[in-house]
């Protein structure tokens, strides 16, 4: 097993034995389940009226996609709480020296830490996805659109996790790491809000914003430009994380 995979598996195991991570997952799933039931109830009330409309929106439009869009907003808060201790926690307890002294390259450490945290985030995503998927037993879902939304959410979660790991490498205070990751992702989520108010929706600033690239997935559009955007964030954030680890070898913990 490669060192990165070993670190990822080990970090996943460490997260899995902590009550904090499971409590966080439970709260998120409970919140999403509550929203899901409310949306379903509303849909059932509207269903008789929708039947008479031409091209009426279905359960995918009115229940599934709003639920997943709401989950994407929750991820902005959730991911920093999961990633905050990946490196900052190790620096705080001075256990990072175990990895640094083991001759594992900084890039491998960054990648291992990233996939360890991402594994847990994706587990929560899978739990949330089981809710809309359960509707398939009673109705007909637009599975293609659901798959596109799931892919978009996975990429979105991947980008947020990479930013979270980077922030965790930047400080030895996990709370500060969470706050800075939340601030950066919130900024990326709202960076083009002003431009949109002015009616600008195709400028460079729109390209930088996270919603510009996650929304097409919710509409069922899988575009390479959006995939590249998320992959670029992941690669750049992990490169900076490795660079930061390199610098840590030159400063005291």
């Amino acid at each position, binding site marked *: 097993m490669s060192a990165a995979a070993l670190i990822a598996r080990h970090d996943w195991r460490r997260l899995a034995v902590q009550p904090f991570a499971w409590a966080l997952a439970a709260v998120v799933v409970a919140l999403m389940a509550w929203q899901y039931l409310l949306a379903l109830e509303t849909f059932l009330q509207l269903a008789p009226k929708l039947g008479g409309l031409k091209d009426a929106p279905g359960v995918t439009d009115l229940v599934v996609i709003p639920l997943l869009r709401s989950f994407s907003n929750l991820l902005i808060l959730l991911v920093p709480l999961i990633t905050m201790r990946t490196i900052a926690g190790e620096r705080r307890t001075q256990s990072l020296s175990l990895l640094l*002294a083991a001759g594992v390259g900084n890039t491998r450490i960054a990648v291992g830490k990233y996939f360890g945290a991402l594994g847990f985030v994706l587990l929560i995503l899978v739990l949330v996805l089981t809710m809309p998927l359960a509707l398939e037993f009673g109705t007909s879902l637009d599975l293609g659109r659901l798959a596109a939304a799931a892919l978009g959410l996975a990429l979105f979660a991947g980008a947020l996790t990479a930013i979270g790991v980077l922030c965790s490498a930047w400080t030895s205070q996990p709370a500060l790491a969470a706050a800075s990751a939340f601030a950066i992702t919130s900024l990326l989520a709202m960076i083009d809000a002003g431009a949109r108010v002015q009616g600008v929706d195709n400028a460079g600033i729109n390209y930088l914003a996270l919603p510009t690239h996650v929304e097409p997935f919710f509409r069922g559009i899988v575009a390479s430009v959006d995939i590249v955007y998320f992959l670029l964030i992941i690669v750049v954030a992990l490169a900076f994380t490795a660079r930061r680890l390199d610098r840590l070898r030159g400063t005291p913990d």
Partner: protein
Amino acid sequence: MTPDPIAVLALDKVSRVLAGRLVVSDLDLTLARGEVLGLLGVNGAGKSTTLRMIAGVLAPSTGTVRIDGANLCEQPELARRRIGYLPEIPPLHPELNVAEYLDFCARLHGLAGTAALAATVQAIERCDLGEVRRRLIGSLSKGFRQRVGLAQAILHDPELIVLDEPASGLDPVQALRLREIVRGLGADHAVVVSTHVLPDVLACCDRVAILHEGELRHQGALAALAGGALRVRVAMRVDASDWLRLPIVLGAEPIDTNASDAHRWRLRLREGVAIATLAAAIVERGFGLEELRAENSALEEIFMKIAAGETPAVAA
């Protein structure tokens, strides 16, 4: 300096600047397999920074750290199998149990499958961790945690073992057990131990290097420092002539200048005489042997002089 061809570890003019301050300056050190080097110094002398550079956690600002002749900065993967490092605060994961944690460490150091399992079992045995192997590390006492830290440093059987204040915070029994383990490791590994406790150095090291303000102020073999002198305490009041009547004793002087209590003596034995022979002679004469140990005043004296800044740096 040309690296010693048989040295496991060679530091060549190593310096490190941290936050604009020169923490270690032009340090030259070598260490061979089967040697235990004690790195002494007061707090802030540069011991931990030196050990972090030796372990590959910190890169030197200038100079090179060589493991078996290879530059550690250019080949950091050398550290994976060849170096075992126990920092001052053991790098533990309190949410895991001892066996899980050591298994991860074994794999991190490049062992796999049954080799990782065998190394974990051996390290648990060597560090007496059998009774706590399934306990969470976070629930262990300080002594056990220190031993878990030591176990992770030795489980991949590295050529070089680097221990930063391993006995820090341990009770006397735990410290004694740790000394025995370190002494045992020194038989077939190169070991560097940092401490500011002189008895630890005397008990388990072959050589000593003393740092002060980042500079190497003294290095040499402990045997040369001890000079064969012994410290004895007896129940009976004796004088120097009583000691000199023993044919094995070359010289005797009281340690207490106040002659009213002449029970503690510094003795020098004739060459080749074993300490056990002296012990037997004291018992035979009925002096009432209460204490007998190797004299360490020379090391103490050197250390105190260096700590007071009276000794210049050792020339490279």
